[in-house]
């Protein structure tokens, strides 16, 4: 007797006889008959050749682990990489909660059946709103760059204008996303992206250049604090006033882990606030941990322009009880297709739950301690690195967790230095020399709460050794 293929652990109806039983019930002689809609000449002609099946968990796990072990990671090595993904401490409770199968496998449900998830989502919005001092927060979109892109499109719809001012010293990765969202010049909806110069002595926005470029055609000014290269923007309130005077929206990007020590953007005039969610308890995940938030004041002119899910608290049929659901949802592409606000779909909502847990664990004092620890350790790193011969900090003492290190005085390129560091178990900062030639051989280093003083001394000492 020929042996039947074994049932697959992920397919209940692959057990012997089940498929045949269902075929009998529907009166079909064969599986092929059930596919009667597909014309014969539509079936693929090329044979399907895939790598061999690893049906046993044993073999699958072995292959997964063997592959992943070919990576080096930032736990075994000492990493100073940031620039859009940052190494922060992830509390174990966050990992437990986002690993809960109910949160991992749910799809939508109803407002009642998946009430717990909806409450967690709303608590993300609420706690982030407390950090930002803003009343409306949307569930996160795909990334910070996507959040900025949507925010700029919101501003263009609100103002009816089609130009956005952005810092010349923008992260090229985020700026590329923004340009995609702003559409090419051939499109009728194109939003012109115009850069504003940086003050070469501080890296901050050049207010004179900003004022010169602000005009009745500007929909929004977008800037970040801390900025891409780490600088805390001291003129933020002034930028917002200038934008408002010109009838433009002020869109800001902020790092949420800085908000225990930096003023809340809702308090100094930001209209639409964006930022990354990855620092709020999400692992770097090789860049797959990113998400971006959008927030604003609770005014209809903003609320009616959001693209995604705005979770609102609402009463239930039981007096005194509260549930959750989606506010102003008809404007999404689910409800309005091509007439909706941009589009929405699957996003990064699991990271909203991570963020909710993370913010509740830290509380007001945790955020204050975290911000103080990061800025102190990052400034300490600046001092130690600057003491290495030939190494210079480009804008010392203006930054939060990231800062620009220049190596021109060493006679070595960033690439050479990072290669030598990597051979010693250290990942140096992101090489800026190709994207910002004016800064010479410079790198963007990131120091957070995960870097102890001893780690920083090791980095400085190793740098000194390899530059000798």
């Amino acid at each position, binding site marked *: 007797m020929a042996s039947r293929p074994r049932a*697959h652990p992920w397919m209940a109806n*692959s057990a012997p006889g089940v498929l045949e039983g269902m075929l009998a019930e*529907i009166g079909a002689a064969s599986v092929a008959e*059930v*596919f009667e*809609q*597909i014309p014969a000449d539509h079936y693929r002609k090329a044979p399907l050749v895939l*790598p061999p*099946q690893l049906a046993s*968990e044993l073999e*699958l796990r072995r292959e997964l682990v063997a*592959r*992943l072990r070919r*990576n080096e*990671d930032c*736990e075994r090595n000492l990493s100073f990489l940031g620039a859009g*993904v940052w190494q922060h401490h992830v*509390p174990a*409770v966050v990992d437990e*909660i986002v690993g*809960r199968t*109910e949160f991992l*496998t*749910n*799809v939508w*449900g109803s407002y009642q059946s998946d*009430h*717990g998830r909806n*409450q967690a989502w709303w608590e993300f919005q*609420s706690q982030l*709103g407390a950090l930002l001092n803003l009343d409306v927060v*949307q*569930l996160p979109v*795909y990334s910070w760059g996507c959040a900025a892109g949507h925010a700029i499109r919101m501003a263009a719809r609100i103002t009816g204008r089609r130009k956005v001012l952005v810092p010349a010293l923008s992260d090229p990765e985020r700026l590329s996303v923004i340009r995609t969202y702003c559409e*090419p010049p051939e*499109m009728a909806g194109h939003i012109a992206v115009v850069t504003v110069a940086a003050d070469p002595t501080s890296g901050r926005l050049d207010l004179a250049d900003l004022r010169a470029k602000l005009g009745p055609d500007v929909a929004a000014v977008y800037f970040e604090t801390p900025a891409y290269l780490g600088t805390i923007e001291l003129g*933020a309130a002034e930028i917002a006033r200038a934008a408002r005077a010109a009838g433009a929206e002020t869109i800001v990007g902020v790092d949420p882990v800085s908000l225990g020590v930096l003023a*809340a953007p809702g308090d100094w005039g930001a209209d639409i606030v964006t930022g990354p969610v990855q620092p709020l308890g999400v692992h770097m*995940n090789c860049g797959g941990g*990113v*998400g971006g938030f959008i927030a604003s004041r609770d005014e209809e002119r903003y609320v009616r322009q959001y693209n995604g899910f705005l*979770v609102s*608290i609402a009463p*239930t049929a039981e007096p005194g*009880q509260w*549930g*959750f659901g989606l506010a*102003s949802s008809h404007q999404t*592409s689910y409800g309005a297709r091509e007439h909706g606000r941009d*589009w929405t779909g699957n*996003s*990064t909502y*699991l990271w909203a739950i991570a963020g909710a847990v993370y913010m509740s664990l830290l*509380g007001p*004092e*945790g955020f*204050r301690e975290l911000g103080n620890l990061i800025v102190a350790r990052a*400034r300490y790193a600046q001092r130690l690195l600057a003491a290495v011969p030939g190494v210079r900090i480009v804008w010392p003492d203006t930054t939060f967790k990231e800062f620009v290190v220049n190596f021109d005085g060493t006679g070595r390129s960033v690439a050479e230095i990072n290669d030598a560091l990597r051979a010693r178990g250290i990942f140096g900062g992101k090489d800026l020399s190709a994207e910002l030639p004016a800064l010479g051989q410079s790198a963007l280093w990131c120091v957070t*709460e995960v870097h102890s*003083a001893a780690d920083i001394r090791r980095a400085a000492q190793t740098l000194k050794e390899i530059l000798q």
Partner: protein
Amino acid sequence: MTAPREFHAARWNEPLVMQLGRPGARGQLFPAPEPEVAEAVGEGLIPAAVARKDRPQLPEITEFEAQRHYLHLSQMTLGMMGISLFGTCTMKYNSKTAEYAAQRPELAEVHPYQHPDTLQGVLSILHEFDQILRALSGMDQFVFQAGGGADAAYTMAAVARAYWADRGQLGQRTEMVTSIQAHPCNPATAAAAGFRVINLPLEEKGYPSLQALQAAVGPNTALVMINNPDDMGIYNPEIREWTKAAHAAGALIFYDHANFNGVMGKLSARELGFDACMFMLHKTFGAPKAGGGPAVGAYGCTAELAPYLPAPVVLERAGHYLLDHDRPKSCGKIREFWGNVPQVVKAWAWARAMGAEGIRLASDISVVANNYMDRKLAEIPGLQRSHDNIAVRRMEMTRWSLGPLKEETGVGTVDFANRMADYGIDPWWMSHEPWIVPEPFTPEAGELWSKEDIDAWIAVVARIAREARECPEKVRTAPHNQPVAQVKGEVFDDPARWAMTWRAFLRKHGAEAARGAA
């Protein structure tokens, strides 16, 4: 018929997290800067003008209280802990082996800007998975940057812009043609990318006619975006003629392979004439949905379109993997970095665990199981298949209508969805907009759920249909066994009452909140 199972969801009456705790309680401590750090950098590192002066209004709770609170919330989430035949989303088992592997530091603690020499493991997986998707689709190159199926549709629109701009025709090719039955993300992303959208209506066979497509495409068409089969389970047998008609007009044509489960291993998008396609890895390829992401829309295209892909692309050179950023014709970034890499790893694990034989069997099972379900649902009075005049067997899902039952009893699809959860069954998927049939619902059995699960699901539908006749009020006021009672939606479109944050809640509902929310 199987009797529906008695079920009651957890009901913790859980307070809002902002209502928990006590002043000064702590859930995470951070060390003070080391003495040598403090000495070197001094005080006042944040200029007073930008320093935070207020205390953010966050909860003050212990580590255990945070854990307990969010565990309670997870327990009040049905997820797919019951039976979820949520159509259009292809509910699958999400492998814990793959999940735990992705949580290892060799992936979780990896930075995308590490030197490629330190990323060979993950790059080898991405490269092999690209090859797997090429084999399944016939396309020449895949990228994983898009954060979901909709974002992959947006990627298509961005690639089309770059393709036509490179030919100097973007000013002329301004239109995207699709079906009214296509997923809303197709028209929405094309519109957000700047294209004018033309929606073709369905005709008597359940899909737009070839003549309608031929009349719609022309020198202004940039792109056609279409799914097949559609969400009603109808396969357009003229799809080869569609791709020819698009190409005859000079246009690109994109296969939204959201409904791949019934045809995987059987069809090749390339052989059918498509220029590009997308797969949802959080759906067809077994990665978890996580309530709406992180997700991946894997986008693949022909060599002709590949120069316009968002960078980077994973390449292999003599057994060494690298990231190609030097793509001068690229459409630009869709999203930062290279995509939700852990989800790609989980999808690769799914494809490896299934193999070609498992993938073909899964498509067999999903289509047979849907037809079995169709047969059983047809025995319940008051239910009607969409396009009931079309007698052919449907694909892996079928759009159904409760129209007759609603007319008879006043009980509709939303009432059903609410009531199903009382039996431990996940509320069903109704339909994307626009609703083409009244009171729609769309079950999809896939390859995960057993025949017994399907029978149990149908028994619940039959029970609720009976309740609709015998005690309609019970269904209309459902659910009764859930974490909360029916949510009253009037506030959701009322600016005076909606509240997206605790701050807004206190401002608008302070008095009610003081009486004790949640």
